[in-house]
């Protein structure tokens, strides 16, 4: 009878907390968006499954060895953790967990190590998170793969569109100001680092968002990743009204002449030029842009096709699977179900809108100086979200001039936006580093 009772106490229903149940609903919502609506399914589907898993009551998939030890260890185990955490001998488990989660880095790391030494094990999702995100490796490898898929031809044919990619980053820093003001007026309680991590959502670049969040505000990583990928999927709905708001029908009809062909050598030299500029101006952007340029160089050099192929396929796919599940580790109810998440979602939307507007307005400003005007609709592509944003420019353009194909012209600012937000990420790392 007693064992039956134990078994019931071990079951999920008995242990289920309302927050966990709510997060399961959130996970199902993400699955619906990913599968039925096609919202960035490559990331949202694994994130959703990771969310489900981490919220399974009692399974401890997201517990470190330390948390495992504190929750399930005997009196002598608890004693050692109390000493390490500097707690009184009668501190209960909730107090210990709280102290552990908010411990300074050295103590935190020693606690995890103590747990492992005592024979406890890290949960599966904690292991995945440590290996892929906390180490920074996974976003970098995805950046390498994205680099190997990127064609800088349109950008090289019309390098001044780099300015559009620069302007659109205003979405990032404008959002930082928004987050900072929300804190200033007492609406939220974001630190400067958290505000910066939230702002990067406006870069419309999933791996960059995850990379920066893992460095500056890991506690917000779940919400930031979900917001970033969701809005990237919503680009076709968010951008057109803004694009139309800031342009006249006349401007939208501006026809752009065909791009010149770009030679192979230019394409090979471009990633090297970016890398040298990074080295000389903004070393803190070196990991992200270095791996990106490496991927692109593998592609354009044409001599390492088997490596380029692997970077674009097997490797990026493996990393994506683990990255998605690992984000799930940060989707526990206490990290996600609070006002900060709402604020992040609102600010993320603002970021996208501001970035889109800044790109369009920059294009209009450039037209004041250029002999051959550019169609301001391609400015919105500067937020990156490759190639979705460029397709949106093309589609809106066709609505007003069925002969005007903007896709290739928009690809220039589009890939410029990727570089732009990686630069912005580097600034943030340098500012807080």
């Amino acid at each position, binding site marked *: 009878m007693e064992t039956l009772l134990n078994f019931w106490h071990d079951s999920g229903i008995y242990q289920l907390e309302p927050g966990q149940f709510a997060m399961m609903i959130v996970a199902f919502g993400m699955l619906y968006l990913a599968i039925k609506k096609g919202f960035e399914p490559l990331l949202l589907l694994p994130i959703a499954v990771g969310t489900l898993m981490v919220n399974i009551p009692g399974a401890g998939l997201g517990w470190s060895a330390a948390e495992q030890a504190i929750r399930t260890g005997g009196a002598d185990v608890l004693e050692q953790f109390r000493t390490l955490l500097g707690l009184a001998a009668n501190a209960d488990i909730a107090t210990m967990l709280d102290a552990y989660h908010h411990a300074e880095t050295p103590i935190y790391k020693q606690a995890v190590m103590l747990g492992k030494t005592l024979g406890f094990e890290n949960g599966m999702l904690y292991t995945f998170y440590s290996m892929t995100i906390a180490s920074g490796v996974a976003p970098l490898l995805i950046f390498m793969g994205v680099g190997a898929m990127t064609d800088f031809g349109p950008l*090289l044919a019309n390098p001044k569109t780099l300015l559009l990619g620069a302007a659109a980053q205003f979405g990032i*820093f404008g959002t*930082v100001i928004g987050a900072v003001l929300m804190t*200033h007026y007492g609406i939220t309680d974001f630190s*400067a680092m958290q505000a910066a991590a939230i702002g990067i959502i406006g870069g419309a670049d999933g791996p960059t968002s995850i990379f920066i969040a893992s460095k500056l505000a890991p506690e917000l990583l779940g919400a930031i990743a979900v917001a970033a990928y969701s809005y990237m999927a919503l680009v076709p709905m968010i951008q057109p009204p803004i694009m139309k708001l800031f342009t006249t029908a006349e401007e939208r009809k501006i026809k752009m002449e065909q791009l010149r062909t770009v*030679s192979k*050598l230019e394409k090979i030299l471009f990633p090297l030029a970016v890398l040298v500029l990074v080295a000389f*101006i903004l070393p803190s952007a070196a990991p992200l842009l270095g791996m990106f340029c490496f991927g692109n160089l593998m592609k354009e050099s044409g001599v390492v096709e088997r490596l380029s192929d692997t970077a674009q396929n097997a490797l990026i796919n493996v990393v994506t699977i683990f990255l998605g599940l690992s984000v799930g580790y940060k989707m526990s109810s206490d990290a996600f179900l609070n006002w900060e998440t709402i604020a992040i979602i609102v600010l993320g939307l603002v970021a996208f809108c501001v970035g889109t507007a800044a790109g369009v307005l920059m294009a209009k400003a450039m037209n004041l100086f250029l002999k051959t005007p550019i169609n301001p609709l391609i400015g919105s592509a500067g937020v990156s979200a490759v190639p979705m944003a460029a397709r949106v420019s093309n589609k809106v353009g066709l609505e007003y001039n069925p002969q005007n194909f903007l896709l290739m012209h928009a690809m220039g600012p589009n890939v410029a936006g990727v570089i732009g937000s990686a630069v912005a990420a580097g600034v943030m790392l340098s500012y807080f580093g």
Partner: protein
Amino acid sequence: MSPIVADGLGLLGFGMGTVFVFLILLIFATSIMSTIVNKYFPEAAPVPAKKRSQPSQGADPQLLKVLAAAVKEHKARQK
């Protein structure tokens, strides 16, 4: 001005500044590079490289390679 607002404005200034400086320098670098390449190495370099990825008329060797791999894999899976 509270310190966090100062941080925000600092980030805005340095951030947008660096982004623009970086990308403007990149425009110059790219333009110079393109000019030099097109003047001194016009299409000489790319030709042999391009050959690799150009879809040749008739039987595409890369396609055949992919097909062969596919057939092999398919048979392996059927076992």
